[in-house]
């Protein structure tokens, strides 16, 4: 068996091609969003919203409406409840997030346990990437394109919001609206990603790619390219490994991304542990190499 066969053979199954396409779509949009989430410090919020959509998805299944609708309603409700608990009691934000999302997630579990269904609703929790139907794929593609378009069109405002909301406000933008927009996209993206890795692991796809890209560059524009590319590669690799090792695809997608992060964390040229060491050495050696005109104006 040649290495090419390793790549080609799985593609002879329709379910595998659908799995790969779905995974790449989800990886791209999650990775894009993750760039803002890690910089704002909303990782926990990502975790919360992605778990809190569960009852919404189950209710949507019961009512026969699109999953995204239920997810959006519960995603927004979760954010609202977190704000309410934090703002009107002495409970701090992390505790408020913990209370709201676990309760909603638990409500989802209860609803699943009492809902008779043809499909296994547990797939929502752990993902069912190999069982993605044509209709699922279409839904993922539509939601992902919507999220992708919003993120790309508003990327500069979102970056400003993440960097300096006070300035955003001072020039007449609404930080509140931008924050709400980002959370809305987060709820949509959670629905996309839970097809692949399930509710439990969605947060990994929403944090790891952005964090990895952040260690690789000092330019936000580059993060927005590095994160999706890296995340797609890792996800495809994860799916292939799962095929040949006959192991959990959702699990392997996340493990691969985690491994990529670990590699960058250790070996990254800019902000990796080893890279930092060699840069410090270079810095000591090369301090005198500044151009004369710049060296003159260097401030202490």
């Amino acid at each position, binding site marked *: 068996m040649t290495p090419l066969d390793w790549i080609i053979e799985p593609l002879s199954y329709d379910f595998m091609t659908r799995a790969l396409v779905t995974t790449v779509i989800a990886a791209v949009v999650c990775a894009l969003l993750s760039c803002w989430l890690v*910089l704002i410090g909303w990782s926990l919020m990502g975790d919360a919203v992605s778990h809190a959509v569960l009852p919404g998805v189950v209710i949507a299944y019961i009512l026969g409406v699109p999953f995204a609708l239920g997810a959006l309603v519960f995603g927004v409700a979760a954010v609202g409840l977190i704000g309410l608990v934090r703002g009107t009691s002495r409970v701090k934000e992390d505790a408020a997030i913990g209370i709201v999302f676990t309760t909603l997630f638990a409500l989802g579990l209860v609803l699943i346990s009492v809902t008779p269904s043809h499909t296994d609703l547990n797939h929502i929790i752990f993902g069912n990437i190999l069982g993605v139907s044509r209709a699922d794929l279409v839904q993922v593609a539509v939601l992902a394109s919507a999220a992708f378009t919003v993120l790309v*069109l*508003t990327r*500069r*405002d979102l*970056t*400003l919001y*993440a*960097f*300096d909301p*006070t*300035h*955003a*406000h*001072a*020039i*007449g*933008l609404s930080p509140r609206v931008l924050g709400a927009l980002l959370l809305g996209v987060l709820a949509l993206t959670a629905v996309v990603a839970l097809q692949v890795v399930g509710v439990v692991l969605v947060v990994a796809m929403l944090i790891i790619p952005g964090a990895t890209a*952040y260690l690789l*560059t*000092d*330019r*936000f524009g*580059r*993060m927005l390219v590095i994160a999706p590319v890296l995340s797609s590669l890792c996800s495809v690799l994860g799916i292939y490994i799962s095929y040949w090792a006959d192991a959990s695809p959702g699990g392997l997608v996340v493990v691969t991304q985690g491994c990529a992060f670990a590699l960058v964390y250790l070996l990254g040229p800019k902000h990796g542990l080893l890279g930092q060491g060699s840069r410090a050495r270079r810095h000591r050696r090369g301090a005198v190499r500044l151009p004369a*005109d*710049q060296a003159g*104006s*260097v*401030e*202490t």
Partner: protein
Amino acid sequence: MTAAIEVDGVTVRYGEALALDDVSLEVPTGAVTGLIGMNGSGKSTLFKAITGMIRPESGRILLDGASPARARRRGAVGYVPQSEAVDWSFPVCVRDVVMMGRFGRQGPTRRVRACDRLAVDDALEQVELTAYAERQIGQLSGGQKKRAFVARAIAQDARIMLLDEPFAGVDKRSEATIVELLRALADDGRTVLVSTHDLHALPQLADQAVLLLQKVLFHGKVDEALAPERLALAFGLDVLGRDGVA
């Protein structure tokens, strides 16, 4: 001199704590005004009220004769944040930050036009950061960091510039550079309001000084504001022996 910032009877309360108590103030156009007070005196709160980040319990604020919301939409308000309020490891370079000053004047997707590039280059030149334009903002000295944000306000063409503690963490030489820069902006007809608890730079920097401790204790000439008995009041060392902690 006409007033660029009119604060009229503004009161702000955080829960029980009174942050600003019936503050009235007129900040003149084309001048540098120093806002002096200790930590917790209400300087930051007054800034937030002026930018509209918080809504006062009572009172009214006008910027160039318009409501703060209108002034913001016109791009009239430039804000230079305190160092502690900035994430210095954020992956943006100096040019990116200065370009953010143009957002209010660009289309909905903030696509960069030739005139934006020109304005940014010009602002970078004014603050003498052209050689540092591509640096990540955390890799600047304290004074350069401040100047980068001043450049943002210049690129924005803000008529009113608010600077929150611009001299904190800045060495003497950079301090002089910033003072010179702010003077030039005021001479150019812009209104500069600087909050500080650092009094060294004040005589060279400001045309007027305001002493704040929840209320306006004094508003007038800088050397008069720096009179020991006035400063003692503003910084809570009450020479008359009243309970100075407001």
